[in-house]
């Protein structure tokens, strides 16, 4: 809970805003004056005052009022990742998902079409799907028996005489989420019709999603292997893309990787010759719209022989390598092999593709977050390659994995620290002195630089202050 307005001199919020608007933004090594940012309301100017070049105010992570605005303006308005088409490959298959506070059903209808509906009976509002996943022809509300098809139509109302002839079943189907779109099997939805086309929103990040899809022979991913569901007591924005932390947060894991090169079922070997070193060639990328990447390409191209040899020692591995080179031109196949199918990209606000997994970030409250990790398998490879993908994933991720657990611990320490309001600014300036902009506008920094943090925050502010700037994205 932020309390800075209680310890700051009582001044009208609008005067604070005006002062901030007039003041030159503080440089990255000058701590903003905490007295100037005491806020009691979050109008556009108030929200802007929480972000300064290289700095962010901790209220962004701790104030429940900010969290409510985030649900309304980010999760209930913009594109949100829902699921992968292969999860509901057969007609009638469904998965329960969440868009901020809205419970939704991700379902393939009898007609084969993929839809997203609010999980809410049109009568008295009970959820009509009470299990996380399954396959059925109907969703039935067991409060009063209203029944919907898996395409969303209201097919049966108990005691229809009670509604009279003016009742139109066609107007009482499950409420569809207004916008649903797919990029190469990745399904996104938006509760507000006024979003840009999905591909425009994804922008330069789409090409990075391709790294995962193209790494599967014939581009066929299988997201049907269950999930690891984790939860931590910290803000959802903590789950960023950070290339500065592994040497410290994951020191114990790096130590096991140094002990033997095949530790972590060779996830360690893929990362050989530490990609996070301060003198290394790995990069961070900000594609715009909050989409960011830890880009290991240059590093991994120097070490791709390691992953190749892991594959060659796995049944079906040689066939897999040949399939990559048969389907793609040589330079792209080189990239796919070097990257080991790992885009390491975050799509704002709730999707990450990291190592062998699709990860959904679900904000629960200002200081509680669920992270669901879905390992991705490939349709046209040997069972041994897919088993290797699972074992690699489990070694680092999930509630008992070597990496996720230390991440969760650190996120909780951050949340506790941010409760301190005396000096409420967080420093995200690392690399501002050396980042560069590519021709398409992508901002690039060193792997340890806070390019992703700044990129995500830029999008956060754009969506929080409202529509006009959102359209610029």
């Amino acid at each position, binding site marked *: 809970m932020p309390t800075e307005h209680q310890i700051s001199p009582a001044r009208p919020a609008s005067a604070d805003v005006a002062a901030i608007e007039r003041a030159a933004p503080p440089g990255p090594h000058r701590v903003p004056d905490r007295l100037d940012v005491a806020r009691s309301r979050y109008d556009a100017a108030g929200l802007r005052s929480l972000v300064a070049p290289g700095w962010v105010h901790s209220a962004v992570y701790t104030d429940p009022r900010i969290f409510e605005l985030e649900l309304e303006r980010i999760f209930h308005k913009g594109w949100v990742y829902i699921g992968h088409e292969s999860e509901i490959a057969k007609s009638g298959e469904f998965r329960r998902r969440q868009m901020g506070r809205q419970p939704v059903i991700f379902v393939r209808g009898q007609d084969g079409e993929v839809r997203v509906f609010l999980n809410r009976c049109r009568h008295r509002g009970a959820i009509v799907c009470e299990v996380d996943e399954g396959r059925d022809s109907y969703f039935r509300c067991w409060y009063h028996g209203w029944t919907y098809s898996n395409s969303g139509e209201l097919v049966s109302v108990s005691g229809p005489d009670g509604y009279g002839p003016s009742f139109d079943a066609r107007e009482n189907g499950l409420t569809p989420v207004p916008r649903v779109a797919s990029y190469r099997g990745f399904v996104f939805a938006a509760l507000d019709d006024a979003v840009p086309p999905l591909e425009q929103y994804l922008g330069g990040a789409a090409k990075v999603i391709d790294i995962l899809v193209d790494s599967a022979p014939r581009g066929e991913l299988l997201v049907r292997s*269950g999930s690891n569901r984790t939860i931590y007591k910290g803000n959802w924005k903590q789950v960023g893309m950070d290339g500065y932390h592994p040497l410290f947060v994951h020191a114990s894991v790096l130590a096991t990787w140094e002990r033997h090169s095949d530790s972590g079922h060779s996830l360690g070997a893929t990362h050989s010759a530490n990609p996070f070193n301060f003198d290394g060639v790995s990069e961070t990328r900000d594609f715009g719209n909050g989409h960011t990447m830890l880009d290991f390409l240059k590093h991994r191209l120097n070490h791709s022989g390691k992953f190749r040899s892991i594959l060659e020692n796995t049944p079906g591995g040689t066939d897999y390598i040949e399939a990559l080179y048969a389907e793609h031109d040589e330079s792209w196949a080189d990239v796919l092999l070097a990257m080991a199918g790992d885009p390491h990209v975050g799509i704002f606000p709730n999707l990450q593709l990291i190592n062998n997994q699709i990860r959904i970030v679900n904000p629960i409250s200002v200081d509680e977050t669920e992270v669901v990790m879905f390992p991705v398998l490939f349709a046209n490879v040997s069972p041994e390659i897919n088993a290797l993908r*699972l074992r690699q994933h489990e070694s680092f991720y999930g509630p*008992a994995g070597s990496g996720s657990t*230390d991440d*969760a611990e650190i996120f909780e320490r951050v949340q506790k620290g941010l409760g301190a309001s005396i000096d409420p600014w967080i420093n995200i300036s690392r690399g501002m002195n050396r980042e560069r902009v590519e021709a398409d506008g992508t901002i690039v920094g060193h792997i340890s630089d806070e390019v992703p943090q700044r990129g995500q925050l830029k999008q956060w502010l754009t969506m929080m202050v409202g529509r006009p700037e959102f359209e610029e994205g």
Partner: protein
Amino acid sequence: MGVAMTERDEVSMFVRAGDDTSILPGSSLYSEIEALLYREAELMDSHSFDAWLGLWHPDGLYWVPSNGEDIDPRESVSIIYERYPQIEDRIFRLKDKRMHSQSPKSRLIRIVSNITASASGPADILAFSTFILGEVRGAEQQSLFGRAAHRLRREADGLRILGKKVYLIANDSPMRNVTFLL
């Protein structure tokens, strides 16, 4: 292609065969199994990592499924699926001061009960048990409930854990860190 041992084959060790012989409570073998499970629980609760590792057979398999009790680990994700070298890595990290999720350490108490066991040979035992595990760390308390299957093999110096499967009944729900031994 040779007859490679797959994960599916491996986990069949946790399924009781129809012709296995029940080991009755009160028998000396039952008491020996019971004592081993209690000893293991004590070692896990007290973070006696090396002593716990010492209970294992070098071909050991440690399995904590996700999303259910009977999944195929070749096609579905687990919470832990580790052979002895990876179990040994886990112990190495648990002893490393830089394993932040155990600073401070969890305080643990578990109750092991409802033990049933059967033998498919003089040196080959399958034991089932249930447990309630309470964890306190910082100001947080959590309870975990589960069922364990132990495949035990008699070696010259006593029973060794050849395989251990731990089914957490909340394994399809959002979970906090499980950075201690199950």
